[in-house]
């Protein structure tokens, strides 16, 4: 499928910001099942310095340094991305999760640091002993790794409630686990903590998801949103994505922007401001499909 994504973020500050610096992850990266066709980022006011490159995880990143005093700040990213369905494979035929050690400690994979680094817990995905126990229910001895990952994603979907008011950016997963509520990045973090507690390679994916209006309703503008899910590694498939917020394996309606160990590595916009006082932010995301012949 081909998607057009418009992602607009508008900050308003109660007093002038003297300097603001932003680290932006908005340019979708190219991954196995996805090609980035076009991307543009408009920044207002214009930054004094704009650095574009790649972060430590290979994601495109922009660093902006705005030096003029301002009371509003707008970032508008437009991207066109083509996604394909992942390779069809029965999850039951993947390597047992407890045999991954053997796979990853043998040549040539033991040299593949890009897999091994995702086996390790980052500070925000550090599992508690309770989360380890929760994970073990899905990961019985000898169970194929992707089958178990699918099971874990579905259990999180069933056991936890989506509640944007229950948590914020800094809520630790131990709390999410306790109140059984949260948003997509909480569920992604929880799943990652559970997987990494068992040393299964798993990474955090930040991106967009196509939402469909209720039957008979027109699709509203600006109602889509950024989304977060996880990716799990198996020798048979490489990285394969799961969405614990929706309890599904990802097909071709998820658009990857970036991946890393957790939210902190790939947060869409993170800024440090001097001045500014209170701020409000409005975010509008539109994801629309494009037919090969024209916009549909």
């Amino acid at each position: 499928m081909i998607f057009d994504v418009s992602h607009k973020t508008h900050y308003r500050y109660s007093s002038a910001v003297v300097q603001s610096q932003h680290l932006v992850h908005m340019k979708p990266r190219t991954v196995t099942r996805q090609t980035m066709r076009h991307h543009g980022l408009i920044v207002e006011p214009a930054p004094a310095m704009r650095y574009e490159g790649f972060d430590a995880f290979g994601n495109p990143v922009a660093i902006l340094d705005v030096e003029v005093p301002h009371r509003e700040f707008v970032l508008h990213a437009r991207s066109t991305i083509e996604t394909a369905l992942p390779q069809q494979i029965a999850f039951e035929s993947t390597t047992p999760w407890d045999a991954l050690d053997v796979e990853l400690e043998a040549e040539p994979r033991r040299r593949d640091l890009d897999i091994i680094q995702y086996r390790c817990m980052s500070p925000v995905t550090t599992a508690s002993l309770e989360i380890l126990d929760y994970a073990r229910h899905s990961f019985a001895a000898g169970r194929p790794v992707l089958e178990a990952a699918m099971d874990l994603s579905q259990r999180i979907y069933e056991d936890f409630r989506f509640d944007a008011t229950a948590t914020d950016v800094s809520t630790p997963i131990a709390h999410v686990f306790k109140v059984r509520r949260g948003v997509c990045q909480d569920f992604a973090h929880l799943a990652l903590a559970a997987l990494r507690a068992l040393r299964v390679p798993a990474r955090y994916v930040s991106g967009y998801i196509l939402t469909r209006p209720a039957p008979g309703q027109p699709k509203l503008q600006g109602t889509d949103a950024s989304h977060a899910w996880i990716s799990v590694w198996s020798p048979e498939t490489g990285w394969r994505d799961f969405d614990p917020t929706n309890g599904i394996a990802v097909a071709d309606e998820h658009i990857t922007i970036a991946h890393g160990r957790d939210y902190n590595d790939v947060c869409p916009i993170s800024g440090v401001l001097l001045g500014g006082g209170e701020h409000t932010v409005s975010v509008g995301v539109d994801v629309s499909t494009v037919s090969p012949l024209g916009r549909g």
Partner: protein
Amino acid sequence: MNYTAPSLAEGGNDLLESYCTSPGCGYDELLDPVEGVRPRWLGVLNSFTELSTAELEQRAARIDRRVRETGIAYDIFADPLTPSQRWQLDLMPIVIASGEWRWLEKALIQRARLCDALLTDLYGAQDTMRSGLVPPELVFSDSAFLRPCKDILPKAGPLRFYAADLARTADGHWRVIDSHTETLAGIGFALANRVVHTHVAGDLFKRNNAVRLSTYFQNLQIALTAHSGRDNARIALLTPGPHHEDYFSHTYLARYLGFLLVEGSDLRTRGNRVYLKTLEGLKEIDLIVRCVDGRLIDPLELDPTGFEGPAGLLRVCRGTPRLVVNAVGSAIVQNRGLGPYLPRLARELLGEELELPDAPRWWLGDAAARRHVLENLDGLIVRKAQEGTGRPGQAALGKDAHTMSAAERELLRREIELYGARFVAEEKIGFSVAPAFDPMGFSRRPFAVRFFVARTADGFEVMPGGLAMSVDPERAVALSAPDGHTRDVWVLSDEEQSPHVSLWRPKLESARVERSQRVIQSRVADDLFWLGRYSERADWTMRVLRGALRRVEEDSGPADGWRAARTCLEMLLRNAEAPARSVRETPLDMQIERLCARLITGNAGPRTLEKTCEGLYRVAHLARDRLSFEGWQTLSKFRPGDTWLTSLGPAQPVELLDLLEGGLASLAAFNGLMHENMTRNFGWSFLDMGRRLERAYNLCEAIQTLFIPASDAEEETSRLLLLLELADSFITYRSRYRLDPSLPLVLDLLLLDESNPRALAYQLAAISTHLETLPDARQGVSLASDRRLILTLMTSIRLADVVAIADEPSRTTLGRLMREQLQLLPELSNAVAQHYFNLTEDAPHRVQTRSDPRP
């Protein structure tokens, strides 16, 4: 134990007798079990035992005193609000012979080279991880491994600072128990210890031909200046601030090397440079000597909660990788888990055998090691693999399964299984023992030493000395020394030592570095301004209290100023809540005593002596790197919890008068020291402006309170006497007029006389002079509001006609004059703050968006 000491001086044997009978095991630094006193100790031991016991005790006491005065110990430099580590320095040093030192130097330098090579690889090609020399999961599980620094650190040039904690095991071999690659690891403590110790035992130091430290620090200073790439470099030592346990070391070192001491909020990035926010605007920084955790140095790209450096620093480092030393990210190689892998790494990276290995240790991320440890948990200590360096002696003790309940042990096992990659297990090693001095003689105390290595022009160089700390071998496996007993380390030389060169008096080449100290950060100006205000406020409050108590205690009647005293006390308590019951019915002298008690301790508003002292100590604490050690000492009375402060409350009026005299004397000493010793830079201007502003305000308030409305003649005389006393102008008045005080003359002396340092006009003129010299005075166009205000205040006073004012029965004009001053002076204070202290640029904060899609 048998020992033979043929050349030992008379009396030494008594000290040794107690040493031999004191408990202790492990390697004995002083005595060989067969040969007796080891040769390296003979000279040193002799020079100590030659002295009489009384002399030794005296010297030990002098060390204690110097430690306190220097501020290594808690009572001066530590944060008043947190309990702190004690610090003692033993009279007896640890002695290392030249032969052993040459070996240690070589071995420590090899360790530094190894750390350097490993860092370059981990943040560059990462071959050591790919080839399995270093377990990748060890590195990736450590939050000190900062991925954004990849490809930046290798361009930063070699590691600049390395430190290692060493212990000597029972078989006499040195082993590394911890490595420090993140910051300077408290080298300032070692330096301060040496300065104190040579002050007391310098003669013995010299006679034993021990090596001095100054050459090392000089080389360090030269090397850092060279590294910055600029001759007159502006070098900043970046500290987390006064709350940090290592702050003493930072201030001491910054002063010694002549670097600027800055905090994260003093800096900002702009384009590809880092700037210091000063009174004169932004000043470019050429080199940052990092004493903060790398993880917390850039909230933009690293830990979003870390504001110990300026946001965007890493972005700047991409273009200027040599800007920060040690380079950000360097802490990863101090991970304890690396210990077992170092011998192979040395062979592969350096092509050498590792001279100085770690003490036995297992990284619990390794499955085989984990199994071994879980099977042998009893004899081992489990600790974090990565621990911040912090203050020497504060390594965590770790978990000792031996002392745990069954449930706790089970929990520990489960945690090892889950978080193994972040833990190590260590064997308890025997620490060696060496003589510690106490009046009963020498006793055996086990210790470990921190040695410091720095990169200088000729490669790595080891500081010829170290910081030895006593440890408890039953519990410690690292430099964990909660009782803070330290010893200097003497490295004996075979060669003649050149005379002492101190960096306190820099040579011409290094003097240019010193000059940058005159730059004043806006934050420091703010602190000094308030230091001036609080010291004057404390002085005034104590004068009011003294004036009131004197009148009550001295044998006199109510007419002699009792009412005046009560009025003044009530003035300072004006905004306080009324006392529980009316005091009006009690006799006047008792009222005064009660008011005094409220003004001292009660929670009676912001102007009580206790609150004022608290404020005074707090700002002095914040500005303490700008104060001399002596200046600090004079303020120690005002430290919360000090006996002076705590005895104020329960004291009887007579004792109280003595205490107040003591307090006033300390403040006078502080002000005198500041006045005599502080360079007349902008910092001085703010300190002095703060004091002048406070004094002007207090004086106007007192005049308004005491003379409006007018009282009868007798009462007015006693009020005039009190005012003269409060304003410390009684003698001036008497020598000038030889008359009983009269209002016009007193007002002339205290309001208009610009030559009287206690007069209002003098304060205003001084403030005006300071404002004129400060930078950024907009010339020509319109006056800044601070300048406009001071002009208004001065003009209004200069135009006043005191004779007419005093004669006016209604005192309307005097009232208007004082009200104007009392209203505009606080406005002036605010205007100065707004102009100079960067209120618009409040603390940087972080903004993140969160994705909240509907499911």
